[in-house]
């Protein structure tokens, strides 16, 4: 297809995958702690609307991102309350979170439709940005793009090399054993859920502040579900989240470029391709020798109730 510049494509896919990286890395931590939060979509859209409102009100994109993280975390607190205190079914609670988040966000955002948010500036790298190809690909982004990669690296390091990560994984693999060792299973899980909510909120804010950038109902359009799928794709390993998200980002950017270039395939079929490919990837990862499910945390989705 002519008219698609590879440097532009790579730099666009890095931007396109940021929301999914952020949400997926947050969900990865939650799932490593043994909790399945299916409310990513709801937390993302809450982050998107809170971030949008706060950035418009304050005139600062940074405040918007902080607000997005807080909005996502606030909604995830509801999930934590339901599953950790009221011991409700995690699948149903996650769905409730998504349904409620979609409604509440459109309620909060109704007077903000059609406004442009303040711009999130590109990080000034000076002469580095003028390097041919690499400058365009690596040094022409806003700070959130770099932060998303740093978040993946930091999560990898914390899970692998620190005591905090070890405890988190112990809680996710066997909450009874972790409880017997004296770790506060519930407290650790609540903190993990809050972290997941904040990251999903940040990802949502990136959609409404940078990717689109405006507010419309249902703006996340399934990004939260794709983030959940990416966690399975990544076999619960942080670096693979980055690979999965870039793969997905690449496909969505490519299909948008094909739409713009006037490809012969109808727009609707191009728009459904990211979802189709996500399903395909799930199938590949879940079957065969390298079964992703083998890496799933052993206590995933089970509620913990200390009987003594």
């Amino acid at each position: 297809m002519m008219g698609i510049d590879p440097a532009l494509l790579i730099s666009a896919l890095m931007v396109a995958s940021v929301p999914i990286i952020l949400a997926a890395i947050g969900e990865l931590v939650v799932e490593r702690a043994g909790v399945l939060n299916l409310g990513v979509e709801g937390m993302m859209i809450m982050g998107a609307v809170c971030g949008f409102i706060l950035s418009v009100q304050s005139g600062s994109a940074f405040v918007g991102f902080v607000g997005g993280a807080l909005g996502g975390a606030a909604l995830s607190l509801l999930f934590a309350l339901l599953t950790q205190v009221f011991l409700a079914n995690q699948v149903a609670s996650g769905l409730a979170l998504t349904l409620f988040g979609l409604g509440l966000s459109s309620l909060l955002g109704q007077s903000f439709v059609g406004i442009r948010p303040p711009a999130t500036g590109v990080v000034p790298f000076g002469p580095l940005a003028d390097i041919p190809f690499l400058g365009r690909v690596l040094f022409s982004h806003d700070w959130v793009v770099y932060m998303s990669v740093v978040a993946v690296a930091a999560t990898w390091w914390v899970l692998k090399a620190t005591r905090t990560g070890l405890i988190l994984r112990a809680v996710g693999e066997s909450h009874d054993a972790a409880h017997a060792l004296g770790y506060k299973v519930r407290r650790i899980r609540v903190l993990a859920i809050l972290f997941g909510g904040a990251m999903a909120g940040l990802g949502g804010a990136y959609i409404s502040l940078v990717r689109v950038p405006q507010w419309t109902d249902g703006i996340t359009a399934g990004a939260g579900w794709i983030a959940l799928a990416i966690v399975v794709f990544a076999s619960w390993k942080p670096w693979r989240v980055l690979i999965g998200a870039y793969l997905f980002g690449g496909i969505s950017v490519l299909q948008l470029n094909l739409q713009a270039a006037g490809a012969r395939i109808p727009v609707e079929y191009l728009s459904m391709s990211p979802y189709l490919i996500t399903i395909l990837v799930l199938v590949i990862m879940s079957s065969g020798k390298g079964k992703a499910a083998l890496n799933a945390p052993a206590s995933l989705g089970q509620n913990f109730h200390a009987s003594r």
Partner: protein
Amino acid sequence: MIRLEKRPSPSRFWQGATPVLAVVLTMIAGGLMFAALGKNPVEAIRTIFWDPLFNPQFAAYSRPQLLVKAGPLILIAVGLSLGFRAGIWNIGAEGQYIMGALFGAGVGLAFYPAEHWFIFPLMVIAGAFGGWIWAMVPAILKTRFNTNEILVSLLMVYIAQNLLASMSLGLLRNPEGGGFPGSRNLSQYPAASNPELIAGTGMHWGVIAAFVAVIAAYVLLQRHILGFHIKLAGQAPKAARFAGVNPTGLVLLCMGISGALAGLAGLFEVSGPAGQISIDFNVGYGFTAIIVAFLGRLNPIGILLAGLLMALTYIGGELAQFMLGLPAAAIQAFQGMLLFFLLAVDLLSNYRIRLGATGEAAR
């Protein structure tokens, strides 16, 4: 100090009482939300729950709407509840609903303008098939490749929505529609329409199908070995395996039934109340049905009542939008809230709350 003690078996009293308690709590929290929006909370709650049924001015219009809205919700929720009981999570009913409508309407429109008695029955079969085939994708991927049915069924909704857009702009577009998106109006094509059967009641074939589904599901769960297998697989998967329950068959069956029922709901909607395939044909019944299934405690009779109540919030919500200027999204948030409270108070049926000193004494 408050402690929780697991009950040996769920309390029968609280199983019945928790949905009512959840509704009351939602009314209180919803009232607070409406007050925050600057509306009189008592008036808003009355407009939503009372006026559609009993206000002399609106009831004549609103009462039939109750069955029109409750029909698809109950039909979808009954199907979903079977899977939920067995621990099989089909949350893509919205997509199956769209596909049922597309398949059914496609068959009907293919015969246009012929008048034959068999067109509508054929559309019903096609609608059920459309929903079934869409649910078979996550089901077969789960049984064959062990993929997560929650994610796949949900992702299939987005694919169905794109197909719907493509169909209403392309293949199924009304050739005499002046270029506007959307198909021919099926309610103006007698052989393919699903009319109101008894004037002024809102009763159409979809509502009858919903009642039949409720009765069939009740008999299945209470009297049939299959219903026993479904319940067993959900409560004790290992015991189910020893009892000879075939997990693969159960996934295919539960997903298939829920898909076919969602497809039927879509077909009855497109040929009746909605009338045509259009880009915004689906209004979220497939997702609200999840709330209905839980509100009805995954029990067919409960779902019947829950579906009627949820339909009431839709109609009352529209009325409140019209009368009080309450935003449509507030009702959506209100419905989501209901599911929250329901899940939270469910604690009461599974656990006993003990007040008093902590310690090992109780054990």
